């Protein structure tokens, strides 16, 4: 939250697990005075249609995020490591189960 914010309540980011077996997915944010309220608000706002089986609510100001300016140092180095991908390896078609 910016120091000049007029809001009485901090911002929370909300993540919902749509069903068992899936990751939690970021769905948006909301404002709440405390963690308990954030969970209830998340339930009322983001699962009105039976969308979730689990909710995380995280205060936005506690999230550590990579900066877009550092995109290249962060992500480019993994781009050329083609040997991490299964398609890099030539296996004859007639070898089973690989």
């Amino acid at each position, binding site marked *: 939250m910016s120091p000049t914010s007029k809001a009485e309540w901090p911002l929370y980011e909300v993540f919902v697990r749509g069903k068992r077996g899936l990751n939690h997915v970021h769905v948006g944010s909301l404002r709440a005075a405390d963690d308990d*309220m954030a969970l209830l608000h998340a339930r009322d706002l983001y699962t*009105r249609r*039976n969308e979730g089986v689990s909710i995380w609510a995280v205060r936005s100001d506690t999230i550590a995020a990579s900066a877009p300016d550092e995109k290249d140092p962060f992500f480019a180095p993994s781009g050329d490591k083609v040997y991490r991908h299964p398609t890099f390896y030539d296996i004859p078609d007639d070898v089973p189960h690989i």
Partner: protein
Amino acid sequence: MTDEDLYVDGDGARWAFGTGFTDPLHGIDQTVPDGVDAEDLAACCLALGDDALVSAQRLAEWCTRAPELEEELALANIGLDLLGQARLLYARAGRADGTGHGEDAYAYFRDPEDFRNIRLAELPGGDFAFTVARLLVLSVWRLAVCEALATAPDPVLAAIAAKSVKELAYHRRWAAEWTVRLGDGTEESAARMRAALDELAPWLDELLSDSTAARLGAEPAAVAARTRLELFHVLADAGLNRSTDVSPLDTSAFLPGSGRNGQHTPHLAPLLAELQSVARAHPDASW
């Protein structure tokens, strides 16, 4: 690719959207079973249905007036739950009393003296503190009743009660959390909570002595004891108890009469006049 394709098939897959809705009465025989007094059953469904409808109407009055947008959603969810309970209970009442009336006959074409809700539900909306306090009392009490009714001898009522239990547990949580926030928050909020509790105290006895659901398994003394105990704990957390007595609210100013007998405050008639205005202005219309 059109826009429509993109949002339906592309981005759409990223979201968890609601799937499938369950009918709480699916596969349940609607016949009133032998051994269940149909008159008792009808009276119980009507009373609990009226409590729910009148409460939902009061919550709907908050629409566009809530103290924060997130609370618009919360209040509407609770109102919708109660409205849903009323509809199921009216449908059951219509079957049990032999009239075959649908839900709208009960909601729109009865006069105030025919309503059987407790008076606490019909008191005017008041401020947010009053809404929280009233919802706390009503949801704690109704939850105790519905938990008992979940094993009622009538399977339809039992199913409605079992569905309601899940909803009411959430209402109780919402109201209890807010009671603690307002009781502990600022001097103003604590004063408003205390004023709200004082205002509803005289109406509490009607609730705690209610025997509407007694013959279907909700024993009044047990329901009352549990309601008192739960209220005591929440109010203790909120710093709002006046004494260490487990009877947290002063009910000595108890007001005689009961909404269960059709004796209402002057506040019910205008509430119903609004609720019924369009339906009664066009009695032959279909909606």
